[in-house]
């Protein structure tokens, strides 16, 4: 184990064979989540030591969804290693977000946060545990992104309530935005519809380490309930934008009919004037 170098930047020695992998979910989710289990890391590197103290100046890679630290060891990890790993995992968390989760199962230790996770297990169990962990964290991450999207949209939704009730010439200028938002909502609904069946995956019998990791992480992160809440919230969004779209269509229909009526009225007035003028001049 390395000796701490300074008070604020200690290095924690990791077991031999430790790897740090970076994953990106997008590619896997495009294929409907089927590719999650077979997801290959964007980058994988062997790692020997880790800063034990949370470093504020170490940013996460923005294009990476998850950094997974895999530590193969048959020995019981020391308290220092465990606390160092936990600190590293929590470092990615937003102070307002959930803190690092901890799971201990059949000698396997799992730490997971929104952008980082760590898996400590015997080498023979690592592969199956990693796949199960990746899958569970992937679904959680996707659902969290959806929840964040919903959360950030409430204010916009408030301002879009008016066109859902009444559409006018003024709202017509916002129709491109409203259409885009409705499409976004439908896209999110489709995403949730793809995600939900995977969250309701039935328990496997006899249980394996991988299946238990999946179940426990889903349970601890309340994925099923959160998906239901997200679905209810999406319903509100859908209703508002659907109504806005309907009002818009009605308005456009009425508008084109009004337009035609006004033009006919103006042309009739013109005709009256011309007929009057020609009549006055004795032309029949």
């Amino acid at each position, binding site marked *: 184990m390395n000796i701490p170098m300074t008070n604020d930047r200690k290095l924690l020695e990791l077991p031999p064979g430790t790897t740090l992998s970076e994953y990106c979910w997008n590619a896997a989710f495009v294929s409907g989540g089927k590719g999650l289990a077979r997801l290959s890391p964007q980058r994988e590197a062997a790692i020997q030591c880790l800063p034990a103290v949370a470093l504020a100046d170490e940013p996460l890679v923005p294009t990476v969804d998850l950094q997974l630290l895999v530590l193969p060891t048959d020995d019981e990890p020391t308290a220092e290693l465990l606390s160092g790993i936990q600190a590293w995992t929590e470092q990615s968390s937003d102070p307002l977000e959930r803190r690092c989760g901890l799971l201990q199962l059949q000698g396997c230790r799992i730490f997971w946060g929104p952008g980082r996770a760590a898996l400590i297990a015997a080498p023979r169990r690592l592969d199956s545990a990693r796949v199960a962990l990746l899958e569970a964290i992937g679904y959680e991450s996707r659902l969290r992104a959806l929840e964040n999207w919903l959360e950030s949209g409430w204010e916009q939704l408030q301002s879009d309530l008016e066109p859902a009730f009444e559409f006018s010439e003024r709202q017509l200028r916002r129709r491109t935005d409203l259409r885009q938002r409705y499409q976004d909502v439908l896209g999110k609904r489709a995403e949730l519809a793809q995600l939900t069946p995977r969250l309701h995956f039935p328990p496997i019998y006899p249980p394996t380490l991988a299946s238990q990791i999946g179940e426990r992480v889903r349970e601890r992160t309340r994925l099923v309930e959160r998906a239901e809440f997200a679905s209810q919230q999406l319903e509100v969004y859908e209703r508002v934008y659907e109504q806005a779209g309907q009002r818009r269509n009605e308005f456009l229909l009425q508008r084109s009919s009004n337009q035609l009526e*006004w033009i006919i009225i103006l042309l009739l007035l013109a005709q009256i004037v011309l007929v009057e003028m020609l009549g006055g001049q004795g032309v029949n």
Partner: protein
Amino acid sequence: MRYPTIDILRTLAIFLMVLVHFSENLSGLVWQFAGFGAPHFALLTGLSYRIWLSSQERKGRSEDEISKVTTRRGLFLFGLGLAFNVLVWMPEDVFNWDVLTLIGTAILLLNWARRVPPLVLVVAGLLMFGLSPALRALADYPAYWSEDFFDPDMTLSDLGIGFLVVGYFPLIPWLTYPFVGFLLGGLLYDQPEIQLRPWKQIALLGAVLISLGLSAIFFRSYLPEAIGNGFFTGWTMFPPSSEYLLTTIGTGLLTISLGHRWIDLNPAVPKDSWWLTVATTFSRHSLTIYLLHHVVHIWPLWIYGAYAGSEPTEFWRVAMPATISVPLAGLFLLLSYFLLRWMDRTGRGGAEKWMRWLCD
């Protein structure tokens, strides 16, 4: 938000108006370019209304509130126009349908215009443009004018016809200008994406209209007799001929679109330059200047005529030579600039402030 182009064009229209009125009313001198001020005022009325409307909508004011304010402003200007006719001109001129009554009515109608699809306004404008010569013929326009002055009988039908077709600034075809300005504001200033603002197309349309107007003036003798006598009747402001309408609308479209592109959207134009300060000062007080310059040069004329002559209007158009009246117009503009700056500095508002106090 203030747009330098609008301020500059309005200020130019003010300068033109003051020069034309001083030289015409004091010396009887009519300039060739005299007809360009009023159309630009009317066009900018529609344009400014569109911009004001957008700002109100952004502030979240309800339709009802906007309607009420618009109606009150329209009625205020209409009433002010009638009062102006009585107090500045003569009581018998109360219904000569000057530019203030036109702008008041235009604002009332813009309250309707903002609710109808733009195509309706385009059709209305085209019909007003196309039918106004026929309507004037139908109404017998020359019968209402004697010695180049609008002189109706005080009957309801004459007043109505004067208001609609044969007065100084009748609704048909003068309403075309605010409608065009309103449409222009929607296309140019209301488009959030700057790249999508069709300033080139509008400038091109303006150039085409100017070309058409000038062609009609220069090639009038080659036109068929029916068109030459009935539709294109030469460059006249009273009545506003088709050439006049085409050229002035075209000029408005061209100057506003190019000004918007090269001045409003040009970061290199210094927003605190002296000429922009002058333009903003005059533009913000255009109504005050309109009223004031009439009072300043017409009232002394009436008073002097009443004392020194046989009737108040005796010295109208013959009071002094143009060599004096034109510098007087310049002096008035200079003094009024300092007056307006002083009013701004001390928070004293002019007619615009009264209007806002009463109507907003």
